[in-house]
């Protein structure tokens, strides 16, 4: 689909409970997104074909879709409960590990990593305890 990219998602470590108990999911997000990470006009599921490309241009500055935007998108469209357990202060909550294509997001620039089509993003909660 022109103007959108597919992102494969994996939730582990108990985090899947916040996303409807589905460990493996995928999302379609626009290639260019609002710079303020607004997710109002974004599609929210892999089956949705709504293109929000035209809407983005009309709302102001845009940026290439990055991981920071994806986190907001997940919170606003996929998360079923307890958003405070997923996001805190505009970023992923401490205690949640993020892997981008099997690599620590700290090596890929964290939230500023620009998403590519078919990237696999893994979110693992480390808050299980001992």
């Amino acid at each position, binding site marked *: 689909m022109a103007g959108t990219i597919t992102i494969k998602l994996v939730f582990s*470590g108990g985090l899947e409970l916040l996303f409807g108990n589905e460990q493996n999911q995928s999302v379609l997000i626009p290639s260019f997104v609002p710079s303020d990470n607004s997710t109002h006009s974004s599609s929210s599921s892999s089956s949705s074909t709504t293109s929000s490309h035209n809407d983005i241009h009309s709302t102001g500055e845009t940026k290439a879709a990055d991981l920071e935007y994806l986190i907001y998108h997940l919170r606003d469209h996929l998360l079923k409960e307890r958003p405070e357990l997923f996001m805190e202060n505009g970023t992923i909550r*401490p*205690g949640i*590990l993020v892997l981008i294509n099997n*690599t*620590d997001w*700290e*090596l890929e620039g964290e939230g500023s990593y620009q998403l590519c089509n078919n990237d696999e993003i893994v979110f693992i909660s*480390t808050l*299980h305890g001992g």
Partner: protein
Amino acid sequence: MSSCGNPAADEQALMPRRLKFGNSKDCVRCRLKPGNIVIRHAVYCQECFTPMVDMKFRKALEPSVNARAGTSKRPKLKASGNLCLGFSGGLGSSILLDIVHNTYFSSQPPLDDSGRPRGGTNHPRNASVWPSCIVCYVEVCGAFAGMQDRTEDIRSVVERYPSFDFVPLRIEDAFDGSWWTKVSGPNTTPQVWLELSKDGLITDGRTAAMHLFNILNLALSGLHVTSDVTSLTPVEAMRSYLSSLPTQTAISSALQNLTRVLILHTAHSRGSSHLLFGSSLTSLSISLLSSISQGGGYAIREELQEEWAPVTASGSKLSSVLRVVRPLRDVTAKECAVYVWWNNISVIGRDKQRRAILGIAALTKNFVVGLEKDYPSTVSTIARTCEKLEPKDAPSGQCRLCKRPMQSAIQEWKGRISIRSYSDDKLATDLAYIPSACRSILDSSTPSQVPLLPSLTDFLCYSCHTMLTSRSSRGVKQSAPGVSSATPLPIWVADCGLHEDELMGIGGRRKIPEEEMLHTVAKFLTDDQTCEE
């Protein structure tokens, strides 16, 4: 990105965020492949990461395997008993099971052409470090209403490791005489109860009689055991005990203590020489800080690693000692999560209710987890610093409740740091509404007319005493008229000579009949009316 704060600088200029790793993104171990994970500023590739964690595990565990250190730099490992693993279903303990199995229980001895172990079955090379391994799990659903029993789920996890024997326990076993008989042999340990008194807190909105009753209770303050008041099932006794605790922090601590002591006794009774817990560096740092916050600083070394044995009636420890080790103490929670992911280890996790810890432990966890994200090295600093701490004097015994070393002269120390005398003028003004007859009882500087009776207080560590008597905004649980306010204690408290310590029986405190208590209170009321006239 953050501003550098320099007023002369351009307001729009932002300080670039410093990298969380060194200059290179290549693996620091093999230096060949690009790194996949950052662990405390060091970069590792996926292939080097797992051996690195395994090495940390063995370095933390193997020096304590042999009963004696010996002189060899690489001694042959041979434990004096079997192995016990504490399993909670969480991240660390799941990794513990997997690494222990892969390292010590899954390797097959090399076989000769006939299929028999090379060198014979008695060859030292074919001897295992521990002859057997048990996995202990403590089910806590009895303590939380509506919580699901996960014993069978845990059993299915342990059954994936055929070398391990599963030993399920329940938190209410701590109040079950039959469990105690199993681990300590036939005995006549009674169920003991405790009269908890408030420590200086007078509740509002009570009748005058209750008000004075509370003051009397304070004057007789201390923790006194009584004979069995009513017969409760182990679950009822456990719930009564937990509901009597003053704060959520106390309840969290009590559950941890019950779990730990249950596993200690079970492991010891089954001939284990080593007991391993899967506490990661992160959870260890949390428990260290949390323990210190609740007055457990004296036993901080035991929180890290200890050699434990039950105390006999004579006060001495048994010769067979159980070494309690936390071999994942150098592995952070992040490393644990990645290890589980890359090695396809299935983690059941903890129940939602169990994960929702409250009180000081929850606050500490939030703090340490936040630290690990922004300043990962500081988490290690917490554990390293605690390792260096050592109490000044030798312990005076073992706390009856938590089974950890007990500081000597605790009450004397508390007396030095607490307000015990109400003879101070300002305090006298504040407490003017209390009748003078009663005020004299509160003043510990005057000789008390109440005989000093042995108290369980003298046999508890500072942390346990604080847990039982800490202040609560809820106030002390008041029992219904005609119902005892005593709370049951874990079964092991009464072991090892409560009679000898004069806490029960002849010379011990007896339960004051209600009529006598009412008479004593009425006497004060009469004095009160006399004062007002």
